[in-house]
């Protein structure tokens, strides 16, 4: 997984479809990222934060009881153990440092499940930056805990009230904010989506997951996994872990989308949020509303590099239904004492469903986040079972 072409494309996907006001800012950001990424002191500062503050490297956990239950050897890359509870902190620390370097003291972000918002609010607090987070009204209701965390950290949380009032609309509102404040704000985008250079830059900030996981797999098992699985909303945790294995052609890469938000599965190429990518849309090109039990995957599009990985056949994308996700959420909790984020439970749900086909194989799952944020929501769903 290398650099996109000069127009920001991976194959036919990507690009920069944004209001003219933002074009100079995107070019400035691309240049700033290139400079920073090639700059030793910047990289050391980021590495130090990832290590001393975020808790990297994250563990690799072999799941003995789950493996016995499924007949598949399952290992987890534990992004849930990162500070703030998900992989999102990797990208945010990178972008917040970059914003500081660019002299931008205000961070704007969108959030679905709240994990990216919490990570952004955290980095802003750490670096003394102002922070505004847009979040769909529907998501604010189902992720109350994260709304409170963001406010506690000093961020302003603004409800997105248009459209489906979920992640897609929060992205629109964050982009609108950025159009108005571009001279002093950095848009801290939360996934490998949006206009160039975001998909590439965010993947590079998450590459650390794949690099660590590759080394840890070799140490723990003596070989690479047969399959690497990760959930896909925009696709940042998947891009991070895939990047450690994409050059090894015998490793299967599988992205798992929610059935109600399967952009690769059900979408066709389209243009939204600054990028050309697979997109769920109607016959006229109106963007369809995704529907998923997990707010973090409730998104009708997908990052452009995933569209390209799907087209080229290097990765495949599968969909799981909400009820399978709930089962996986319970299964991991019961067998391993790890409560996964509902997003991450999508990846586990696919492994569980495909256990017969995967029998005897070694599967590495990116556990992108922990389930604390989802516990209140699941109390209702599981009310008659527990």
């Amino acid at each position: 997984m290398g650099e996109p072409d000069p127009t920001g494309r991976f194959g036919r996907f990507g690009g920069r479809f944004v209001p003219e006001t933002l074009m100079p800012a995107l070019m400035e950001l691309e240049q700033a990222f290139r400079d920073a990424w090639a700059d030793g002191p910047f990289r050391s500062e980021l590495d130090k934060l990832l290590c001393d503050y975020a808790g990297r490297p994250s563990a690799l956990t072999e799941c003995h009881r789950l493996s016995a239950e499924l007949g598949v050897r399952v290992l987890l890359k534990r992004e849930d153990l990162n500070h703030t509870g998900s992989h999102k902190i990797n990208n945010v620390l990178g972008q917040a440092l970059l914003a500081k370097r660019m002299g931008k003291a205000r961070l704007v972000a969108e959030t679905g499940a709240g994990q990216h918002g919490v990570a952004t609010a955290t980095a802003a607090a750490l670096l003394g930056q102002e922070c505004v987070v847009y979040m769909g009204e529907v998501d604010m209701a189902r992720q109350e805990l994260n709304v409170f965390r963001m406010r506690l950290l000093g961020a302003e949380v603004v409800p997105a009230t248009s459209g489906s009032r979920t992640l897609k609309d929060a992205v629109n509102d964050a982009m609108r904010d950025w159009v108005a404040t571009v001279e002093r704000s950095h848009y801290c985008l939360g996934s490998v989506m949006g206009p160039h250079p975001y998909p590439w830059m965010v993947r590079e900030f998450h590459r650390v997951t794949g690099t660590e996981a590759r080394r840890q797999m070799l140490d723990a098992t003596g070989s690479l996994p047969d399959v690497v699985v990760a959930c896909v909303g925009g696709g940042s945790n998947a891009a991070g872990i895939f990047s450690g294995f994409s050059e090894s052609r015998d490793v299967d890469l599988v992205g798992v989308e929610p059935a109600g938000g399967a952009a690769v599965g059900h979408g066709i190429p389209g243009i939204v949020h600054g990028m050309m990518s697979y997109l769920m849309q109607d016959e006229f090109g109106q963007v369809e509303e995704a529907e998923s039990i997990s707010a973090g995957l409730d998104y009708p599009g997908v990052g452009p590099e995933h569209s390209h990985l799907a087209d080229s056949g290097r990765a495949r994308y599968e969909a799981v239904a909400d009820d399978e996700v709930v089962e996986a959420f319970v299964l991991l909790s019961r067998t391993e004492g790890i409560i996964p984020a509902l997003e991450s439970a999508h990846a586990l749900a696919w492994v569980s469903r495909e256990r017969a086909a995967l029998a005897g194989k070694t599967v590495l799952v990116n556990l992108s986040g922990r389930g604390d944020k989802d516990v209140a929501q699941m109390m209702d769903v599981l009310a008659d079972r527990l």
Partner: protein
Amino acid sequence: MLQPALGARIASGGRCLVPYLTGGLPQADPADWTTTLCAIADAGADAIEVGIPFSDPVMDGPVIQQASDEALAAGANPAGILDELTGVDAGVPLAVMTYANLVYRFGWERFASTMSASGVGAAILPDIPLEEADPWCNAADAAGVETVMLAAPTAPDERLERIVERASGFVYAVGLLGITGERDELASSAKVIAARLKAVTDKPVLVGVGIGSPAQAVEVCEVADGVVIGSAVVRRALQTRSPEAVAELVGGFRAALDAG
């Protein structure tokens, strides 16, 4: 075509007025949105921008968003709006304003030729910047459709030169950093961007975004060749659903601009 029509107004010492109306916006019976379109034309518009509503209009503020949502809920779609325009003779040139995905989904070439067949001579696509413009512009050029390019206050001079080079119809000077919607005062950036563009082009330079009152229109036209009035017109259409009431608002802008 827009450019000759606007050019004639400017040559005679006048200032151009281009109102925006959301296509498919429900109006009070028996009027429909094309009745409002014609009323606006009669009230003194030099050209009209017809919005084709999109589900995710990132360049638009709450007023135009609401109008888009209502029009979509009422069944508006790109083919339908272009089709309805085919039978309409507003007597002034028309431009469509919409977003990249609707055009891409329709097909660049097919959209351009359908526009042309419907009598719509120009397009404004705010999420297609210069770098992404070739596929659309080539299709538009081939179909004889003008492409209005947007120029924002954030662009360096060298970029403005490339933008005006590519623009036809007029050059859309974005009056402020932000999305569509009226503001209490004219942003200081409005005259600045207009002046910077006037220095590098002879094409008509119209300022849009953030112009809500006739006084603001007159003020910016000390420098610019004209104005695009979006949210103020759409707000009136939403509030009254009456072609006459919207025409009255547009007439007020016309009178103010003519009085200078």
